[in-house]
């Protein structure tokens, strides 16, 4: 087990720079998720830490040891791939045992350890099978067993659940989490699925175009997005954005756009000049149906209601543009009817139009 330290990491393919001057510290035992849209460099970053991709500049340290120039096998890391990457001609047992055999571990010990990890992952009945006779979920379990048996200092997962169906994905996600609670091995988990990231991570590293956009716990990322990009990327349904004009009213700042009038405490935000246009972000899950007189009330006409079981997503027409909210009280709403809803001032986000950065003062 070990902490990870990436310093000034750079990666270029020819003249194209994919990752530029990235710094990252991961403490021991932490479960970190690299999250970001496709092509932002998550896999590249992970593969550089694993040693599968050459590092163009900077250093990687695993457990206080500089591994920048070490081959993958010498770094003490184990990786689980999206495509499982099992050795197709070997039985499940041989797949799991392969790494230990390369380290010349005695066969009796190998047998004991295979028995142990296969028990942990429910693979005892499958040890004689070939990978092609396993389902996707079983194959990914074998891949995890193969990674675990080496007792690595660091686990790397590159979108391990993306090829599985939703139900299995949830199940394996929980299993991975539970294994981490058990073994406490430092883990980096790559995904483009924000919900997966939110549920599994101790800390999310949100990436955009080869740079870290924000890092923090899932609630920090969700409740205090540092940029408009983060606010938009996290959460489903996506955050509602409106361009609003600023008017200072002493203790409060008034934000207005058409029929929309919101008030936020001035002390929470950087000073804003009257007349500035800012982008206001309203999270659907932070809004709820309210009475007409409620603070920060918004009125509109229901466009459609989507039943999601215990909650419903309601799309409301406000000044000719859609705005979503998620509410438990969706059953009383129907298309065409007027509705009033409100948002807590603490959940209103302001972003600079110019830089996209959040205008909220750091807590």
């Amino acid at each position, binding site marked *: 087990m070990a902490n990870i330290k990436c310093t000034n990491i750079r990666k270029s393919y020819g003249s194209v720079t994919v990752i530029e001057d990235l710094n990252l510290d991961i403490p021991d035992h932490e479960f970190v998720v690299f999250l970001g849209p496709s092509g932002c460099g998550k896999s590249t970053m992970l593969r550089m830490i*694993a*040693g*599968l991709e050459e590092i163009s500049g900077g250093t990687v340290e695993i457990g206080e040891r500089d591994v920048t120039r070490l*081959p*993958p*096998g*010498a770094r003490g*890391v*184990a*990786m689980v*791939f999206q*495509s*499982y*990457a*099992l*050795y*197709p*001609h*070997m039985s499940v047992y041989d797949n799991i045992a*392969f*790494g230990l055999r*390369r*380290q010349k571990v005695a066969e009796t010990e190998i047998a004991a350890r295979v028995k142990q990890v296969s028990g942990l992952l429910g693979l005892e009945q499958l040890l004689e099978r070939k990978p092609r006779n396993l389902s996707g979920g079983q194959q990914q379990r074998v*891949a995890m067993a*193969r990674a675990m048996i*080496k007792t690595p200092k660091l686990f790397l997962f590159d979108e391990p659940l993306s090829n599985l169906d939703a139900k299995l994905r949830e199940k394996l996600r929980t299993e991975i989490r539970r294994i981490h609670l058990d073994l406490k091995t430092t883990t980096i988990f790559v995904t483009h699925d924000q919900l997966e990231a939110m549920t599994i991570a101790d800390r999310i590293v949100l990436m955009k175009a080869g740079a870290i956009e924000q890092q923090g716990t899932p609630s920090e990322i969700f409740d205090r997005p540092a940029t408009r990009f983060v606010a938009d990327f996290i959460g489903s349904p996506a955050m509602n954005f409106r361009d609003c004009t600023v008017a200072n009213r002493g203790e409060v700042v008034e934000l207005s756009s058409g029929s929309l009038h919101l008030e936020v405490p001035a002390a929470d935000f950087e000073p804003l000049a009257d007349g500035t246009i800012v982008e206001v972000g309203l999270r659907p899950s932070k809004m709820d149906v309210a009475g007409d007189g409620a603070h920060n009330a918004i009125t509109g006409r229901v466009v459609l209601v989507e039943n999601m079981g215990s909650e419903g997503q309601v799309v409301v027409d406000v000044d000719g543009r859609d705005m979503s909210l998620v509410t438990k009280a969706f059953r009383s709403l129907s298309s065409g009817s007027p509705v009033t809803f409100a948002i807590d001032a603490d959940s209103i986000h302001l972003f600079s139009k110019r830089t996209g950065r959040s205008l909220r003062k750091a807590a």
Partner: protein
Amino acid sequence: MQPRRFIFWTLAPAFGLLAALALISIAGALYFSVMDRSLRYPDYDFVGLYNFERLFGDRRFLNALKISALWEIITVAGSLLVAVLLSVFLFENTRSATARNLICLAFLAPVLLPRVAAAFIWRFLYSPTLGLINYVCELVGLGQVEFLASPSLALFSVAAVDIWQWGLFFTVILLKLLETLPKEPIEAAQLDNARTWEIHAYVTLPMLRAPIISLALVKAVESLRSFDLIFVMTGGGPGTATETLDLYAYQMGINLGGRVSYASAMSILLLLITIVIFTLVWRGIRKWAA
């Protein structure tokens, strides 16, 4: 017309012609093998299995059988060994695509040469007095080596030419196959602490088992037809050191003896042996690969 019928009728003439040609020559050989036809006498008679009986007492025939078997083993194993080693070496040590393609092009050249041309080139290279190879041998202090005239070396010297042609060709095929393999299992093996040779021995080559077996079978069939190469390089000599079955049949039937029936019996026997051995090998491989 229905597609099936169309396919049938367009293929039928060509298949019919091929079948007729194959069957007629086999029927002819069968017919002559039970006669005592010889070019020396105009008439001939039915002699039953006499020719076959004589074959099993013919030491030169048994020698040819042994040489043929050796030739098969050396050329098939040699080509594949060269191909496996070279393709893995190139896979690991050439990074740029252009360099690789140029090497592939160069490796394809030998197999494009007509066998007779290859044979003449190498006969010249092997030549004791003029040959480049002997010049190098002298430089490194081996002295003059009689590559084609020494009974113990001749078969290997000729096989080297065959391997030069086919081993390099198979190298290109294997290299391209290695390139098509998914990267992840190789990377997983790297992370599993496997050394380069272990990655290939335990992961990539087993993944390519089926195509490698196919190459071996293709080469085994191809090696049966090396008459031209051996004929030009050694003519079966020195003595009978490189005389395979087809060379001996040729010497008996056409060149020296004109004993058509004896040679026909030999080719029928060769056909039978080939069918039996290939069937057994095929069965064995299928069981092993399953």
